[in-house]
């Protein structure tokens, strides 16, 4: 496998995985890029044939986890010397604007954030970039069936969470008929 193919395969799930650890999306992208770079550079150190998607996926996840830990440590140090900025400065580095702003989608995002860790993980990895269940499973070193099971549980949990948060009318217009 070449680097482009690897990036295409694992970009979405890796960013989703890192974001599921509680990293802001901007930092998650940075960590993912660093992880791809380091995993590729040191791919010969990988145990097993790194051309195998499962092997490289496991290797990439390990590298990303280390990067995340370094980021978490440096974040705690950064917070100790944080400098207050004007709101105008922060607008430039804010998350990209939602092309279709809606109360429902906002509520859904909030609900995704409240999912149990394992369910949130697969949701972010699978739906961020339409990644296949097999690739998500390879990155997490679990079976595709397990991924499917978690996705199902996640969608059911999300529905429950949204029913609590949104009025019945709004939900009724969005949800498909049984």
């Amino acid at each position, binding site marked *: 496998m070449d*680097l*482009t193919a690897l*990036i*295409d395969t694992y*970009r*979405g799930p890796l*960013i*989703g995985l890192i*974001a599921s650890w509680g990293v802001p*999306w901007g930092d998650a*992208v940075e960590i*993912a*890029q*660093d992880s*791809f*770079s*380091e995993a*590729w*550079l040191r791919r010969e150190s990988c145990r097993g044939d790194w051309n195998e998607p499962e092997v490289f996926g496991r290797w990439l996840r390990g590298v990303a986890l280390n990067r995340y830990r*370094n980021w978490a*440590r440096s974040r705690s140090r950064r917070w100790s010397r944080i400098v207050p900025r004007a709101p105008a400065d922060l607008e430039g580095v804010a*998350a*990209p*604007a*939602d*092309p*279709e702003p809606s109360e*429902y*989608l906002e509520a*859904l*995002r909030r609900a*995704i954030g409240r999912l149990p860790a394992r369910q949130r993980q697969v*949701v*972010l990895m699978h*739906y*961020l*970039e*339409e990644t296949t269940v097999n690739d998500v499973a390879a990155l997490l070193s679990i079976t595709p069936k397990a991924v499917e099971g978690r996705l*199902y549980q996640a*969608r*059911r949990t*999300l*529905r429950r969470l*949204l029913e609590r948060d949104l009025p019945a009318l709004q939900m009724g217009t*969005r*949800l*498909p008929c*049984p």
Partner: protein
Amino acid sequence: MPVNLIPEDDLRMALRPHRVDPIAFEADVRQRLEAAETEREDDLLAGLSPLLKSVAALLPLPFITGCKPTGTEAKLAPAAGSIKLLGYLAFPAISLFLLLGAAVFSIVKIRSIQDGNVSRLDDEQAVSEAVREWWQCHQERAWLVFAVTLTLALIGATWLLFLLYIVSFGLLLCVLASFARRGLGNRRLIAQSCLMALVFLGQIASFSGSGDQEIHFVDQLLICPVFLWGALVLMPFVVGTPRRSDTPVMRIQQRNSVILFFVLVVSLTVWFMNPILWPATPSKIQHYVESFEEAPYSSVSWGHWEIVARWTIESKRNPDLSSARRLLAQEISGEQNPFILGSAFRVGLVRADQIGLLKDYEGWRLDGRRRFLETRPITHLNQMDWVIRASVLRNDLSPGERDFLEKRLHATIEDLSDNSNNVLETALRATQLLELIARPIDRDRYRVRVHHWLRKFHCKTVDRFHIAGGFKPYLAAPVGELETTSYAVELMEIYGVPRDLDLNWVRSFLRPPSIRDSGDRKWIAAVTRDRLNHLPGVTQPTWLTVAYYERSLIAAVVLVGLCIYATVTSPQLKPHSQDSEL
């Protein structure tokens, strides 16, 4: 029952704002890869493990590499906290071995070049600058290392000190070996750094009184020659590589300094290894006994001689005591010190016909006879000892007097429980005198009591510069005494060794001294050690025990070995680079 699930399209829509541009993402990854590749090519430390990188980050690299361009500086940032902490373990070795050598040799070298060729100063100044910068960054920690080194040496924790340096130097060695594989650093730089540090450690070992408060079988001053010989081995690596910048005068100076250092090391080694090079053999001990022609310290000299002489006689070496007899004759014709007479009687120097010459004998005997009628303890048994022995020798004691004397001697031993002075000596004298008057003591009756005294007067904690493990003459004494230790060992010959008394402490106290003890103390220690080793049921310490207690010495040897290994495995100077190195 059907279940309502959140539509997948909604989830995709909710996460869509967080999607990234695939092309930009890959471009960023490739940019990072290029930067990393470039950094790896320039970085000397790229191949090092995180631990070794942490160690290398503390090094003044221009000094190690002899001003070879190093590309990037070592960075600590990527290393985890625990790795950094481990990396700091190498700091003592860096401070002591590299910086000490670097600082001293930089100054010497710059001075010599200033005197000669000014144009060669660049590299030397660069090295000196690197050292100076390192000091600026780390001087507090470096001073702390020196302070800890001195403190550990002064409190006698040499084992801990050397262990710290072995671990520290082991880490440093890994970094230096990695540099050597990359062709960085050179043998001369490493050798001079190690040399200075070994001389420094040798000096500390020579004056610190290390190991005095621990069990050791050899004098810990031997650590000093170990370090100095290590330094001597490294000396050829420092001065043996002629450089084009060296003038003939400098070479002569270097040769002279090597000769001077060699003479110094050999002299110190001979001095400190005195007990090993000239051990107290039985023939030498006998010679000491036979050549007792003067007693410069009167009864003290006689007391010392007596301990050694009795051992020689008991060992059936049949020493010629004519010199001692002549000295005794002088004493009899003169002052007739009761302590000297006691020593002479115990060795068997006094003949029965000489007793008539002892002017105080009849007076003491009459006085003693009155006291014999009482059953009180003898208050000054050491002074009365010779009178009793003279009475036995002349057969002046009737059976009744012997019975009364027996009671008084028993009362004397009983009275020792409340006493705190000369308990062990008095107990030994009383026991010996009971044997002499043919009223041998019931050992089982006093065994527990004597063992209690032995434990009570055994001294395992002492002040600075005193050796622990001996027996104290009186309870308030701060340190054990050789004579009392000899009496204690003789008591153990009679009453056995107390179960919880570690004889290795006594062996440690009696170890052959290097310079602190001289004259007859060497012989007393030797004969007492022999008595100790021949106590019933006592076994010699195993090699494992010896190795454990001599761990400081072994650690010093290992440290010297590491220094030599680090030097030998460093790359040789190339001819073209000789001028640019320090």
